[in-house]
């Protein structure tokens, strides 16, 4: 099964389970969790089911396209189910079957792994799912988002698409993965991997990124002061991305580091609160629809 088929299978499967399919979000981010479809929608009482592919950027993990497993940008398939259904583990395991993974032929385990993103005040409990010893999915029950305790609890399933594909296709290097017949992963992504690494580690304009961080932070606050949650969130994501670029470049000293993280955390905390308030003003529409049916 090639990468494209895998993605199609997962989309079809989760659409059948009642998820809406959305597209990758158009602001840079380090993980699918930071897509507003997860970060914001996991807040407040409204039910929510969504699935999407998220290309996630982690500048510090760039390896000039040379390392077989580490990437500047990798792909996550992200599912959010809120509230977490009682049979969520079975739902997940059935999704593996649609990828041709027969659990009787493999060793599938749920191994404790508690997830945390302090910058966004988010934390959850769960597992990494092992397929014959390889971590292929992060399985998390969110407990806190934007430094707020959440209720009801969302469950987040994050499939590492490159990992899964390299297992399914039995390839040692991500660049050898087949995207579609005749086109390899490397054909699509090796050049950007090299160029982004080169830019991140050698060329990026530190002054510009520092200025951008400050400017985006200011803009986020301005939007937030007007209770415009979604635009404010975009600018917080941008702050986070420019921080990641500066950090990968080694431009942020130890003492400054905690300060920058604190600034993003404060913004995300305010945002989380504002989002819930704005939804409340609207009367939590998705909640009413559920009760009304």
């Amino acid at each position, binding site marked *: 099964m090639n990468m494209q088929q895998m993605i199609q299978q997962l989309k079809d499967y989760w659409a059948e389970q009642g998820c809406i399919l959305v597209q990758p979000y158009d602001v840079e981010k380090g993980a699918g969790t930071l897509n507003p479809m997860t970060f914001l929608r996991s807040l407040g009482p409204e039910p929510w089911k969504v699935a999407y592919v998220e290309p996630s950027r982690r500048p510090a993990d760039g390896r000039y396209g040379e390392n077989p497993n580490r990437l500047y940008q990798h792909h996550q398939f992200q599912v959010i189910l809120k509230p977490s259904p009682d049979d969520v583990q079975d739902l997940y395991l059935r999704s593996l079957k649609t990828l041709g993974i027969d659990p009787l032929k*493999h*060793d599938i*385990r749920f191994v404790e792994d508690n997830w945390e993103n302090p910058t966004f005040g988010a934390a959850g409990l769960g597992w990494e799912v092992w*397929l014959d*010893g390889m971590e292929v999915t992060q399985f998390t029950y969110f407990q806190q988002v934007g430094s707020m305790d959440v209720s009801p609890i969302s469950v987040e399933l994050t499939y590492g698409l490159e990992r899964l594909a390299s297992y399914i296709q039995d390839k040692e290097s991500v660049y050898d993965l087949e995207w579609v017949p005749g086109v390899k992963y490397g054909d699509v992504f090796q050049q950007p991997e090299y160029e982004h690494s080169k830019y991140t580690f050698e060329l990026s304009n530190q002054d510009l990124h520092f200025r951008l961080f400050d400017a985006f932070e200011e803009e986020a606050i301005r939007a937030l002061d007007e209770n415009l949650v979604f635009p404010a969130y975009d600018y917080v994501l941008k702050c986070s991305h420019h921080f990641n670029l500066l950090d990968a470049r080694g431009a942020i000293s*130890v003492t400054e580091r*905690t300060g920058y993280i604190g600034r993003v955390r404060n913004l995300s905390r305010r945002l989380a609160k504002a989002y819930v308030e704005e939804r409340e003003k609207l009367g939590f529409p998705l909640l009413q629809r559920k009760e009304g049916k």
Partner: protein
Amino acid sequence: MQYHQLLLEIGCEEIPARFVDDAIQQLQEKLCAWLSEARISYGDVKVFSTPRRLAVLIERVAEKQNDLEEEIKGPPERIARTSKGEWSKAAEGFARKQGISTEQLTIKELKGEKYVYANVYHKGKPTSSLLLEGVPVVLSHLHFPKTMRWGDNPTRFIRPIRWMVCMLDEQIIPIRWAGVVAGNRSSGHRFLGGQVELKSAVEYETCLASQFVIANSNQRRQIILNQIKKIEEDQGWVIPVDEDLLSEVVQLVEYPTALYGEFDDKYLGLPKPVLITTMREHQRYFPVEAQAGSLLPYFVTVRNGNEFSLEQVASGNEKVLRARLADAQFFYDEDLKLSIADALAKLDHMIFQEELGTVGDRVRRVYDLAVTYGKTYGLNEEVAVHLDRAAQICKFDLSTQMIGEFPELEGIMGADYAKHAGEAEAVIEAIHEHHLPRTAGGALPQSELGTILSLADKIEVVVASFSIGNQPTGSQDPYGLRRKTAAVIQLLLQPSYHHLSLRFMLSKAVDRFEVQSLLKVSRDELINDLNQFFALRLKVIFQENRIRYDVIDAVLEADMDRPAFMLEKAKLIMDQVDRETFKYEVDGFTRVSNLAQKADHLVLDPSRLKETAEKDLYQTWFKAKEQFTLAEQAQNASQMYEALVTMVPAIHQFFDEVMVMVDDQATRQNRLSLLREIDLLTQRFMVFNQIVFA
């Protein structure tokens, strides 16, 4: 009375392996405690635990709770009767509360006062109905280090609860908890088994076995051991079974099947601890050795399933290990290219604690302390040179890629890289040993340098946290300060380190933070907090040495300086406590101490002592003090005590013949001052009035 088997099974999503053993023990203890408290008799108890279930099966559980006859004391009769001799409102209220009529009240006398009593008879209720209320309470009282919520459920537990079984023989007890109603349906193995309906509690183990769940964890342990042994025999290998890893693996699988895989032998060039950590910590594999003890390029893992398609599972695991070892090899090669000086420079870019600067700052503090401690210890110059070097570079491996990936190899990699860099043998050894002991009761450093550096390293980190007011509270001890404090004491209890003064070492550490203006609390407060913290660890260690708690208090209150000497004093007293005259001696010291508190200030004037007994006491004290001081300088506990004991007859004589609290103020203060001097002397040994006599 009829008896039944009680089965309670809690079905969960995968419980973290490290919590399962404790969870099942709690469930057993708390359920049994509840039965006892509810007056329900029961017999033998069996427990079952897997990643997905905690179950208790109890034999001979009584069908009903035992009847209870109780006599309950009410108000005094004078309140219970009106002036006309009728039952008062208070009496009526009491009777109503106990569920009896006032005619059934009786009167009994207690300590000269008459009271109203109610004799109440509680008929035992059926166990089945008591369980409905009791089990949810038991479940909500299980404690876990981390709990979570799920779905819409307000309940917190270690992981989501998905089913429960509760039965008294064939009868279902439909307990409700965490949004689940208990029934007689359990789940088998996630992939090999299915749901199973129990006809009776007694079937539990066999029914689950038919669905590929070995519910008894000891049995799973034995199966895994047998399977490993079989692989050993078939292949001619040695597979050392790490007890912690085995315990974890037992709680990662419901139906174990051990298998082996291999890896490229080019990776055998990596240091053995790197290979072992990669396999054991990251993949939960058992490393494989040749008969001679060297590693072989194989590993053993335990699958949660049967023998079907084992080659596929083995090849998947081999692929994962291959990627991990390739990473480790890359880190190792890169790290060897990094000079120690460059590695050290990077420590200035790693944060230690926000308020305390970088790891580089911390290393410089450790260095200063190690050099100071080394001088006090009396290292000779040749060795001191090595300490200097070791203290400067002891943490350089923190900035290597290998430690970034395997933090648990800190020190071990440092020693390996230092060896490649051509450092002196003593330096290499100290880099490794300054992390010891790594666990409570773990191996201690063998070398002087390792010990001194270990002391400096641990004291620095404890004082660092305390200096910014970050003290461990309850279960919160992120830097392991309790363990590090205990380690400091263990190190100082070793014979060659008896002369090192804890007070001096702590004070030097506090100085070092003070110089940098890093103290967030006052110096006195800090020293006091540190003393209290060390005292708590000392108490634990002394208790392990079978010292009575009152003797511990007596020693600790007097002296917090040299742990070995303190322990010696405590042991000396433990040898005395059963001696007949010991109480006589302690009574003397205690009487002195009690009165000495009344002395305003020291104004002892020997010429004012008139009576024979007080002059004698003065003379004996004077001699005892000289003798004691000599013994104290020699740190000889038994001679110190002997010196104190020479005063005992004179003390008793004094109290028999001399009146201390006389009207004449000058005489009174003079006598009190004499007692105060004696008290000060005994307190240099221990605070005797802490000692308790039965």
